[in-house]
């Protein structure tokens, strides 16, 4: 019965959008782009994870977090720690005073691996940590804040302050974290060289796969009763509370979920870019994640992904072609989205494209039924 429902859903308008996105990411981009550009798209998509989380947390539930970079960074650092340990085998680091520990620790006169690095020898632990570490920190923040009904602007500013704290800490504790340079020179994942073009292409597909997992989890949450409660909570928090719900627990849940999404994004970032540094943890990247989400449409999961793609592509384009101008472009984009298109691309699409689309339903049906791939399944 589940499978039937699934195919029903695929044939719905929403299902078609998902298929189109899958087509774009799985077929069009890999065919149309060389491995260099494809890797860049992969990098853009890692931000889409954070943007997906923000749709749930900000668009759907009204909780604006200016600290998604924290969770993105934590996920990324967990993965980087694992890869760094693998790259720092005693053979590779034979000239160090203490072989077998990461090079930056040796430079900082550490003579043994710090205890919290030890578990990152294990890949399965790392995979769990990528989810659990961001979720745990998010849980602590969320319990402290939401149980006391801190919300809105205050929450935003406090998450921003936490992002600042974490950046200073990582930079200051360079013996443990690699400092401002971050954790660099990552080479292999379980013996598999992640720096080759083939590996990067494969990682791109893994990234797309994970993105669809998150997308589907997100869509499932939005469509469940929980999704409706989140929306209800955003508009009439007291009414929800006096309908017998523990509002804080819902906020905690959605904030943790968003943190986990960002953590996965961070881990994928580390794998594809090959290093992690404190500059992805701080205030600026966190705000940029909000912008991706806002440009895509803060209420639309698919919008968040397109937002991440388009804004980052624009950033690359501007900075390649008009290096002196790209901040203007980005700034104008922010303002335009907020002032003129508060629902972002998704809103524009709904207003201008959808009416056209309903005039051509037959055509769309056909194109959907002829689309042969079922990448959504692949992702599951």
């Amino acid at each position, binding site marked *: 019965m589940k499978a039937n429902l699934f195919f029903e859903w695929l044939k719905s308008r929403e299902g078609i959008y998902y298929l189109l996105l899958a087509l774009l990411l799985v077929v069009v981009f890999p065919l149309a782009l060389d491995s260099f550009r494809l890797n860049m798209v992969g990098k853009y998509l890692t931000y889409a994870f954070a943007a997906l989380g923000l749709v749930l947390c900000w668009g759907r539930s009204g909780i604006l977090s200016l600290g998604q970079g924290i969770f993105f960074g934590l996920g990324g650092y967990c993965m980087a720690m694992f890869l760094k340990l693998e790259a720092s085998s005693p053979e590779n680091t034979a000239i160090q005073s203490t072989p077998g520990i990461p090079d930056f620790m040796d430079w900082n006169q550490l003579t043994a691996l710090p205890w919290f690095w030890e578990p990152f020898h294990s890949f399965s632990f790392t995979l769990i940590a990528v989810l659990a570490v961001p979720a745990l920190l998010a849980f602590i923040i969320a319990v402290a804040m939401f149980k006391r009904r801190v919300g809105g602007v205050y929450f935003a500013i406090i998450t921003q302050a936490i992002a600042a704290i974490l950046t200073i800490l990582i930079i200051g504790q360079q013996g443990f974290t690699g400092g401002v340079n971050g954790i660099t020179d990552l080479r292999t994942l379980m013996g598999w060289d992640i720096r080759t073009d083939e590996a990067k292409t494969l990682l791109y597909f893994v990234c797309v796969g994970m993105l669809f997992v998150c997308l589907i989890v997100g869509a499932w*949450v939005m469509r*469940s*009763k*929980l999704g*409706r*409660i989140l*929306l*209800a909570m955003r*508009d*009439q928090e*007291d*009414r*929800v*509370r*006096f*309908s*017998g*719900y*523990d*509002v804080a*627990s*819902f906020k905690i*849940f959605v904030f943790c979920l968003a943190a986990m999404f960002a953590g996965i994004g961070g881990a994928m970032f580390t794998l594809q870019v090959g290093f992690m540094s404190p500059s992805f943890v701080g205030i600026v990247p966190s705000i940029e994640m909000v912008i991706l989400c806002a440009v895509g449409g803060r209420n639309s999961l698919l919008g968040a992904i397109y937002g991440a793609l388009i804004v980052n592509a624009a950033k690359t384009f501007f900075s390649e072609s008009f290096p002196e101008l790209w901040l203007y472009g980005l700034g104008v984009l922010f303002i335009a989205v907020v002032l003129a298109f508060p629902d972002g691309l998704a809103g524009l699409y709904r207003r201008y494209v959808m009416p056209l689309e309903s005039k051509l339903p037959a055509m769309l049906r056909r194109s959907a039924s002829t689309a042969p791939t079922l990448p959504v399944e692949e992702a599951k």
Partner: protein
Amino acid sequence: MSPSKQDFILAVEGLTVSFDGFKAVNDLSLYLEPKEIRVIIGPNGAGKTTVLDLICGKTKATEGSIKFQGKELTKMSEHGIVRAGVGRKFQNPSIYEDLTVFENLEVSYPAGRSVIGALAFKRDAEVIKAVEEVAETIFLTEMLHQEAALLSHGQKQWLEIGMLLIQKPDLLMLDEPVAGMSVAERKKTAELLRVITENHTVLVIEHDMQFVGDIADRVTVMHQGKVLSEGSIDHVKQDPKVIEVYLGH
């Protein structure tokens, strides 16, 4: 007043709350019998809404006790109080405008109230039946799949009452349910309330004396955070203290 404490569904005793020294409710006691419609009236600033806030936990009492079916409410969380069987409607209709009428009622349906529960919640036949029944009671069967934002003011009020009904509370608290309604809507609301009291105890705040006369079993008059008078509508109308407060100024 003779019945023993156990007979009261709600027993409020010595309730006091102060905001930076100002006592909005001062040593108030109030007892409700099961299936009673009690109306609280009083001039602006008498502390009527604060009493409802205190009972449903929105405001924490400084002193005093609120016992509901033998349970002490003052120490409970808001959602705990709701789950214990107290429903509350706000003064301004507060409904979810982006959801349909059906979804509004469904969100209020008392199942799937935990995070996991809400994720696993299914819209089964039982839910649909409950929603449709309530929709019928609140005259909104026709509008079930419209966005709530499109409802008239009166319909929104009814919807919020419906959202309480579907929780099957034992005590319903309504803050000015007919404010802003047309005469026809008022009549319908009074009718609605009468249906409701077949199964519920109701505590209403209202200004409209005509409406109060129509529905009230007993009336409590509040003034400056205290009970001024209590009894049938005719009794309080003739109470000189009440006349003094309403006409003396």
